[in-house]
């Protein structure tokens, strides 16, 4: 214990978490401690003391970021894990493990401390079957209301009918919204609507053109990604899935998430050369993803397939070409391997470098054109400035990350704050904006494209100079990986939309016992009501566009 420790934090003089201070802070709420590879301290707390534990950690120890809530079932108990971090330094991590009784799994909700727990706990209830006390609205989130059972629980019987008719079930349509005295209108936006970027259903209550209430209904694209990953072997069978989470060209960024967590769990080294290639590929994906975000946001505000949408796609196509040359695929790359990448840069290398350099050289001009076309357009500014305000404190409470958080002035980027790959060796900046509005989110993404270009430039320089006999693309990884029983870790990377984290628990076999995905879009989408309530419908649509969600990642 350090003498210099500030009173309201549990950090030592170096700014790292002091495990004993956490225990001191929580006192008798702690039942036990555990070992999580990522966390500085993992405490097991009483299921009826969740709220005060989380509040204490948030207010007195500075853990302001509830990254994820993982739920799982053991032979003898249920368990919820709250993965807490600090926005200032995400390497300071604490896991709060909450056991719940096998026969009656009930634990207290953490919603009072972190708003993001709302959806995360609903998902835990939906898939695993833990009941959260004091939760404001505990109902299914990914599966339909009339689903039977909790598919990730151990006694789930797949042979039983999984969905019953609405009539047999408690009819969710029975609360008819018609009320003769009401002067509001209930409007279903989606799941088939031009502005929802996929199958999102936004239940909206309108007062004239003003949005009185918004509730997102998700799950239309739920594909059991977690369960599929739990049925795949670490070595090769899981890597193809991440491409399908955020499927609009962010594939390599998602693969990075799995690579990072699995390499952490199984303790695999990655050759430096492969790390540079990974970093370059990931940033190419980020540019492609941000271009798409820009184009579709313009589509939402302009209202038609206008020039800017097509320009963004024209330039994104160049990135796609580079990625295709690199990975052999346009969408589902499956390029990373544990311990490296699948293959080296395409031959002839000069052509690949030239293609990439040509793109990077042309990029500033393209961005200039975008700024001329959209961000400096008066009508565009009229539409976007000061609409969809997301206050930084609100963003933090909802666990918002990525460009959404950075546009609200939250200086948080996993690439810099919790470095992985080759990022800490390179010279680049984290972009933040103070606008907090739709406009700031667009600007942030456009500037991040520039930063990504800087990273790619440096990677290309490095790769060009790399001595031919040191080009190791994969380290020596055992054919079958069997991490030790009961090793648990949660690791995140900065994907296109924000912090993409994966929790994995090994049980001694070659398949993960629990594979939980923390998708950035899922958390970011939760902020929509905060942005849209009290604004006009067009602003709701613009805010939704500026969140840049991909439903494949929200629903998983």
């Amino acid at each position, binding site marked *: 214990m350090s003498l210099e420790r500030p009173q309201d934090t549990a950090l030592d003089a170096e700014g790292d978490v002091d495990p004993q201070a956490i225990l001191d802070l929580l006192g008798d709420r702690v039942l036990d401690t555990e070992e999580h590879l990522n966390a500085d301290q993992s405490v097991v707390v009483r299921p009826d003391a969740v709220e005060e534990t989380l509040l204490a950690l948030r207010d007195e120890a500075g853990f302001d970021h509830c990254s994820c809530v993982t739920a799982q079932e053991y032979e003898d108990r249920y368990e919820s894990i709250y993965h807490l971090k600090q926005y200032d330094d995400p390497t300071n991590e604490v896991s709060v493990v909450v056991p719940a009784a096998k026969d009656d799994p009930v634990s207290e909700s953490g919603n009072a401390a972190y708003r993001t727990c709302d959806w995360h706990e609903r998902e835990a209830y939906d898939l695993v079957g833990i009941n959260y006390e004091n939760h404001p609205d505990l109902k299914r989130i990914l599966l339909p209301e009339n689903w039977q059972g909790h598919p990730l629980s151990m006694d789930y019987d797949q042979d039983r009918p999984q969905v019953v008719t609405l009539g047999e079930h408690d009819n969710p349509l029975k609360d008819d919204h018609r009320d003769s005295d009401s002067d509001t209108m209930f409007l279903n936006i989606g799941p088939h609507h031009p502005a929802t970027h996929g199958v999102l259903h936004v239940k909206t209550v309108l007062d004239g053109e003003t949005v009185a209430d918004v509730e997102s209904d998700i799950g239309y694209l739920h594909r059991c990604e977690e369960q599929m990953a739990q049925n795949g072997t670490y070595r090769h069978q899981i890597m193809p899935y991440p491409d399908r989470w955020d499927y609009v060209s962010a594939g390599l960024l998602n693969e990075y998430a799995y690579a990072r967590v699995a390499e952490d769990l199984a303790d695999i080294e990655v050759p430096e050369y492969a790390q540079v290639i990974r970093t370059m590929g990931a940033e190419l994906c980020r540019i492609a993803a941000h271009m798409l975000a820009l184009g579709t946001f313009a589509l939402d505000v302009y*209202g*038609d397939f206008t020039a800017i949408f*097509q320009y963004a796609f024209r330039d994104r196509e160049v990135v796609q070409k580079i990625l295709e040359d690199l990975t052999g695929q346009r969408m589902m790359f499956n390029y990373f391997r544990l311990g490296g990448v699948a293959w080296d840069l395409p031959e002839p290398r000069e052509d690949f470098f030239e293609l990439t350099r040509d793109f990077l050289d042309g990029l500033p001009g393209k961005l200039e054109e975008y700024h001329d076309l959209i961000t400096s357009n008066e009508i565009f500014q009229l539409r976007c400035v000061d609409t969809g305000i997301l206050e930084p404190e609100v963003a933090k409470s909802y666990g918002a990350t990525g460009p959404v958080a950075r546009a609200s002035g939250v200086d948080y980027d996993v690439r810099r704050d919790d470095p992985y790959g080759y990022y800490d060796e390179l010279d680049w900046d984290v972009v933040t904006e103070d606008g907090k509005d739709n406009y700031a989110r667009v600007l942030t993404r456009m500037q991040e494209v520039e930063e990504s270009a800087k990273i790619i430039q440096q990677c290309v320089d490095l790769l060009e100079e790399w001595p031919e006999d040191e080009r190791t693309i994969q380290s020596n990884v055992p054919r079958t990986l069997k991490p030790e029983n009961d090793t648990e870790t949660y690791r995140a990377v900065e994907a296109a939309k924000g912090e993409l984290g994966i929790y994995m628990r090994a049980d001694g076999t070659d398949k993960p016992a629990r594979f939980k995905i923390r998708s950035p879009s899922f958390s970011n989408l939760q902020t929509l009501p905060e942005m849209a309530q009290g604004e006009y419908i067009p602003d709701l649509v613009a805010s939704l566009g500026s969140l840049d969600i991909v439903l494949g990642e929200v629903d998983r």
Partner: protein
Amino acid sequence: MAEQTLPELIADVTGLGTYGVAGEFLAAFLGAFVIGSIMLSYTGVAGPWAKRKITAAFTDRYAVNRIGPFGLLIIVADAVRLLSKELIIPEDVDRPAFDLAPIVLAGSAMLGFAFIPMGSIFGINMQIADPESGLAFVFAIASVATLGLAMAGYASSNKYSFMGMLRAIAQNIAYEIPLVLTAASVVLFAGSLQMSEIVAAQTLGGGTEPLFAIGGLEIPPWFAFVNPFAFVLFVIANLAEVGRNPFDIPEAPTEIVAGYQTEYSSVYFVLMYLGEFLHIFLGGAIGATVFLGGPAGPVLPGFVWFTIKIWAFFLFTQWARSAVPRVRIDQLIDIGWKGMLELSFANLILTAILVGVIV
């Protein structure tokens, strides 16, 4: 004196004039048939082909190029496609208002062309009627379209349609007044509501002096040159009137799906779209007549000039659609009532004073 109108010419040439009212009616019908066919074929070219080609050029795409030269035969293919689609009529719609709305929309736009002097070609004056109150009549008829929108939105019994209707009506009321007021300032110059008189006041020769001459090139006194301010106001108000960016609020695809036309399919959808394109052309025709000298122009026949001018208006709407963001509904209303209305009144009063002092 005004030229012989198209039905009069038909009556003379065919001898229908000798059959009294019935003959005149038949001649008028034939005249209307000719004009209607021309405008519909413009729309036919504009909708499936020109619109695609123009926006493709703006947005760096190819658009239709497989069927026929320049992809022109896509018009035929699209006609077959659109007409053979299933006509889906939702259960709760309010008939016959639901069925009448597309007809009112397309019909009101068509009617407007009856009074537009389209110039002459091969010695035939392409104008069906030339009443003394021509301009007022055109505006009156063009605004009947709002009724069509209201019928469509209300009868569809769909919330998106309903919102589109509310928006459309709010927008049309807000922008119809500036539109008419700016046109009225022109009437002060021309001293007449009669369309042919307005055109004559802008056409060189026959007592009209050129505005000024640059090196032997005489600039005609088109009202767009006489009062550019009014022209700009008119063009903006007209964009709102035809519902194109930045004022495509009533449809706003990414907000309220398709507005008042959400529930329309197949032939009804075609009629709705037909009505919209006709309205763009009608807006162009009014603008051309009132501000750009109607069919006036050198060398080429008047009707060709008129065609060029209305297509130029069409091109402009497509340009705006490709490049300009959409404003929000409250901003639209703000611009309409707080900006356009004041400016158009100022324009009218200033023009009235100037005309009073100079003339």
